[in-house]
């Protein structure tokens, strides 16, 4: 069987590597909480390459404007319609910021309008249960970026399954810490990251 490998999408226009510790942290959480066969290290995969199709889960983040090249756009469309799942997170936590504006434009161009995920969606209860939808981040609570709490995630659905998740919550900042720091926390904030990966592998 193929083990789960956390893949970060490289794209030409932005700072795709802006959350360098996040993969390690989520891999640690998946290994800690589940029996999923997970590779101990993640990979970086150019979105424009055929290699992305070997990794049906992709993480994409950044602060800068997102403009997909022709090859990136073509691959992303093919990736999502074939059953891959990509999570795109706004590292600015700012719905007026350049990442949000350009990324959502690109998503709308490729897939049309996104669907708002209801709080009872399987994504919020497939492993850990989040009755209130996506968990709030410290940046949202402490005021950062647009100074808003975003209670929903948006998604592109393909045959009823999530193919693309768009987050304005800045999980890239929330989860970008060394895994050993979890022991000092009252509640592990990466638990929702586990849900994202479990959903991708199970639905």
């Amino acid at each position, binding site marked *: 069987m193929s083990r789960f490998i956390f893949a970060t999408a490289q794209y030409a226009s932005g700072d795709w590597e802006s959350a360098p510790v996040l993969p390690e942290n989520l891999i640690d959480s998946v290994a800690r909480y589940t029996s999923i066969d997970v590779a101990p290290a993640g990979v970086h995969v150019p979105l424009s390459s055929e290699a992305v199709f070997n990794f*049906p889960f992709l993480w994409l983040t950044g602060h800068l404007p997102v403009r997909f090249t022709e090859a990136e756009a073509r691959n992303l469309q093919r990736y999502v319609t074939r*059953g891959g799942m990509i999570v795109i997170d706004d590292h600015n936590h700012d719905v007026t910021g350049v990442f949000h504006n350009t990324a959502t434009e690109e998503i709308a161009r490729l897939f049309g309008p996104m669907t708002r995920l209801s709080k009872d969606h399987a994504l919020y209860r497939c492993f850990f249960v989040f009755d209130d939808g996506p968990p709030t981040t410290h940046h949202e609570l402490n005021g950062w970026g647009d100074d808003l709490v975003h209670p929903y995630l948006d998604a592109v659905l393909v*045959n009823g399954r999530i193919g693309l998740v768009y987050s304005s919550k800045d999980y890239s900042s929330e989860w970008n810490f060394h895994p050993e720091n979890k022991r000092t926390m009252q509640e592990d904030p990466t638990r929702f990251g586990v849900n994202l990966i479990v959903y*991708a592998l*199970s639905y």
Partner: protein
Amino acid sequence: MHSPTDRARRWLETAFRLLALAALLSAIGLALRGRAADRAESSDSNGLPAALRRWSTVTTPIEASVAFLATPTGRTRDWLTALAGAGSRISWSGSELVASALSIEPRADPAGGADLVATAPLGASIVFIDAIGTLDSARVSGSPVRLGLDRPRSTIEARVGAVTARAGLTDSLSVDRLLVIGRAGWELKFTMAALEERGWQVDAVVQLSPASRIGQGITEPIDTARYAAVVTIDSSAGRYAARIARYVHSGGGLVAWPEALLLKPLARLAPGQSGAPIRSDDLPPPDSLPRTALTLLPITALRQDAVILERRGQLVAVAARRIGAGRVLQTGYTNAWRWRMAGGAQSVDRHRAWISALVSRVAYSHDHPLAVPPADAAPLATLVAALGRSTPPAAPMPGADPWALLPWLFSLTVVMLLLEWLSRRLRGAR
């Protein structure tokens, strides 16, 4: 004492009488022979409908030979069989007729469809036709020709030269839900996606950790009243293995990936054992031979009753067997998900159809009989069963028409008798 002239006349008169007698006997013989010849008939396909009416209403032939240019319809064949039953000796020939057969079976698939299997002599070309027109054609190359139809018409024809085999769907199938069991992973995800997109209703047990699993739908009890088949991706099916084995014995279907056969109750049901893995590289599976790019655990140590369904070169990739009323299919592929994600333009559809076909082969289904027109699945075999083997065409009767000679023979008899009478009167005898 008779004069030499008298003696000559007497000789001549005797000769006239003998000639008259010979002509009379010949006429009688020809008349009898002509009567017998009148009751041996022959026809070909074109004249057969009229001949059958004549043979059944005007004169019943003692022997009838038919030269078929094409396979007769069931009605014609039955008519000839009835004539044979009424006492006529029916023989037939047909050098253009070749053995062929066609079968059509509904798929146990929520999307419906049917599978055609046709056979004919090696090298023959088979043309498949339905009520709308030509569906496809293929040349026989050693094994039967198979054709899948997503929306079959009630009757399908397979034409091989002058022979037309007809087969119809005699029933339709409905299928229940599927139960998919496995750990969270790509193979499970994409297998479930393919099945659901095909229209299967899928319940799933997804193992996430030793104490945690996702259950979609109700998974108990596992029986044929609820599930058409169980799909086991890996050894996480352990807690259900004994129940699955009972389910299969009671008529259910099981599709097992190699790792699931590490469970002894399932291994005992499997068509074979899993061999050493032949790992794939990360190259995209090509559209032409996509499964050559997948990791394969070839099926070895096949049981005697196992049926090989797919090979990769010399290796067995998919096999199946019956267990009582149930069926078990073992696949040797472990990462078919790569076919869907990384394959060519058709890979999503083909992966979906392939996965669904694996399940269809073993799924428990409910039959619903259909009213269908009469079929003729193996025309030549049916003809031989009805009328016996073919015989060479009957040779035409030598010589002229016997009835045409009778007036000449009668005239000859009369002339001879008149001459004999005249001769006797001229010499003064009575």
